[in-house]
């Protein structure tokens, strides 16, 4: 008995609609974010992550309104990420009703932002999102290596993913959202090597993301990947499985869940 592992459905939102693409192309419409969030809340989601993938400023105002609406109806933790560049953006999202804010690219350009933000708002609401890709496989002589990528996985930064996660935790990140850009959207399961390497290296909770295609993948993320929470989008958006199905399946496999 103790702390449960979490299931977090993720809403990628573009211009006020939930979308889901395969490796950021081939976007499919998955509905109104408020309705989708309400549905997941009813199904027993442990948290909701809202990722704003809109590029324009005008659409960002839509995002703030959507977050406000979700937060007044859904009484579980809500994380908002995408386009967070400075403390003012964080303040805006927290004021709209977000409980945590995800920082990704801005942390790479300015790691001190994570330090400032966690000092000002508390580590508990600062999630550092990491998009990583494998750059070399494990051999007899060396360990596998993953690097941080930006621009939807197109641009390498040369930064080692495990070192980066460790640094971000030391700078005050309260949680790491780890996405494998190799696996994202292809439904073959998490990159378990990456997940385990990062989870074991840091002392803050890690959310595994990218690649869930079935319920066994969620189990693998926790048992093999050691993840504290698992994030998925398309298996829930298109009705293949409910959050309840996923929780029941994980519990049957010996994982402590909130049922």
């Amino acid at each position, binding site marked *: 008995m103790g*702390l449960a592992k979490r299931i977090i459905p993720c809403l990628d939102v573009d211009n006020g609609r939930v979308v889901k693409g395969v490796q950021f192309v081939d976007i499919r419409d998955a509905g109104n974010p408020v309705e989708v969030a309400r549905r997941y809340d009813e199904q027993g989601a442990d948290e909701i992550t809202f990722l704003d993938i809109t590029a324009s400023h005008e659409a960002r105002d839509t995002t703030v309104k959507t977050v406000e609406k979700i937060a007044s109806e859904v009484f579980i933790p809500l994380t908002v990420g995408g386009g967070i560049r400075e403390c003012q953006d964080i303040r805006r999202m927290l004021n709209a009703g977000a409980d945590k804010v995800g920082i990704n690219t801005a942390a790479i350009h300015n790691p001190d932002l994570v330090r400032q933000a966690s000092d000002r708002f508390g580590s508990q609401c600062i999630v550092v999102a990491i998009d990583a890709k494998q750059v070399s496989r494990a051999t007899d002589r060396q360990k596998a290596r993953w690097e941080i990528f930006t621009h939807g996985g197109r641009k390498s930064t040369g930064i080692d993913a495990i070192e980066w996660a460790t640094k971000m935790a030391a700078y005050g990140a*309260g949680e790491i959202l780890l996405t494998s850009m190799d696996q994202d959207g292809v439904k073959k399961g998490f990159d378990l090597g990456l997940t385990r390497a990062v989870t074991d290296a840091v002392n803050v909770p890690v959310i595994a993301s990218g690649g869930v295609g079935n319920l066994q993948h969620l189990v693998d993320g926790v048992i093999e990947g050691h993840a*504290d*929470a698992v994030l998925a989008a398309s298996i829930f958006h298109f009705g293949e499985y409910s959050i309840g199905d996923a929780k029941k399946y994980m519990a049957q496999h010996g994982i402590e869940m909130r049922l």
Partner: protein
Amino acid sequence: MTTAVDIAVIDYGMGNLHSIAKALRHIAPQRNVWVGDDPDIIKSASHVVYPGVGAIGDCMAEVRARGLDQVIVEVAQSKPLLGICVGMQGMMARSDENGGVDCLGLLPNRVQFFSDHFKLAKRLEDQQSVLKVPHMGWNQVEQTQPHPLWQGIDEGARFYFVHSYFVAASECPFTVGKSHYGIDITAMLAHDNIFAVQFHPEKSHHDGLQLLKNFVNWDGAS
């Protein structure tokens, strides 16, 4: 003119109180929920919520700078008062956070850091007790003593926690609910009309909302 305030949420400028205000308005739509730092309004409310987010050093400094420490102490003698997370910690005598901070002292306990406890567990080679910090997520709460605020909530129900500092259940006689995270921690405590929770009821779905409903309907008697 303003209408009388039923439920006052104390705002001392430390971040997001929207969640708690929204949750209270949701469960008590007919009551006037107010958020602010005006001592007179806080004292006039029937129920007072003392929330908390962030580091205790800044929280206590802000509470004192606004003269709210006296207000909370006064409220604690007369009406139902709910402390949430850092608000609960602020009710204690002292916290180890930020190099040691004196708190309001409504209750005599000391707030400790999980990592200090886990380092001790590691030295004792009790690896089972070494866990990640913060304690983040849904943990079970064991109801160790009966209380009116447990009404409609199952034994062992899960609530959402996110914190790095804790009150040890073994040291706090006011504990009415405990959770386990490497050590037994006080999840819920009650002392006369003071009630406090380490978790976030406003983020704990149905059971959290039920607890808030129980609080706003409570007259402060145990």
